[in-house]
């Protein structure tokens, strides 16, 4: 994971992708909450599940392509 956080004078692509994904996911969660009538507990569970899958994909992608 050496290049995950920092690599050749810029942020590692792994942590960068993780931060971007997390921020966008948060904004998307807000939008979904406003556009649908889903119960808040269900929405949190759904979006948390999606976030974990996303983080998994980012880490896996970093290992396959970036590591």
């Amino acid at each position: 994971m050496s290049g995950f956080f920092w690599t050749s004078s810029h942020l590692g692509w792994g942590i960068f992708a993780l931060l971007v994904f997390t921020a966008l996911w948060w904004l998307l969660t807000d939008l979904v909450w406003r556009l649908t009538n889903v119960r808040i507990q269900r929405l949190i569970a759904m979006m948390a599940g999606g976030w974990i899958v996303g983080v998994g994909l980012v880490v896996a992608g970093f290992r396959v392509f970036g590591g």
Partner: protein
Amino acid sequence: MTILIVQIVVLVVLVVGILLLVRHFPYPSPLVRHWLPPHKRWPERQIRDWLKSGRYHRGFLAYFYRDPERVPPPGVDLLAPADGPITSADVRDGIRYVVIALSFWDMHVQRSPLAGRVVSVTAHGEDFMDGEGREFAFLREKPCPVQKRIVLATQLGEVAVRLITSAAARRIETWVAVGDSVERGQRIGRILLGSTVVLELPADVALRVKVGERVRAGETVVADAGYTP
């Protein structure tokens, strides 16, 4: 170094987006407002807060004051005077009162149901109606919701449109005066940030709409005129 700068810019933009979200919560942030339907873009609670503070979101006011063109359907049948759902259409003392309840997100310009001549424009009431009294509160002598009643002499007889305010509204504009001739579907007034419009018709007029149905000012036929021109 360039990559680092680009990364920082991207992250700063995202942080600003999240800060906007947190700052405006529970109301929508300006970033997502555009994507939401009007009643979610400006939630009722937020509008009621604005009513208390007297400071409104500029986008909401622009939306509220919209005055779109409307094309009346051909014929002479009676048109809805306002946008909104019909909450009652009962008969009392020989008059059918068709009550249209406007929400904050409905278009608030009222239109003439028929062609005719303005017989009177009178102001009544000293109290403000707050939604619940919509049924026949407007008929009470005192206290009675603030309202303006425009009476038109038409081929059908006298037809009246009452523009009634809510606690939130407190202002009514009428754009016609006694003696004016009005066309079917012509703009006759506007309620600012309120509330209810009542169409008074002769009791024997055949209604073409049901309670609960949404109507559009100057476009939806609400009753048969009962004659052919």
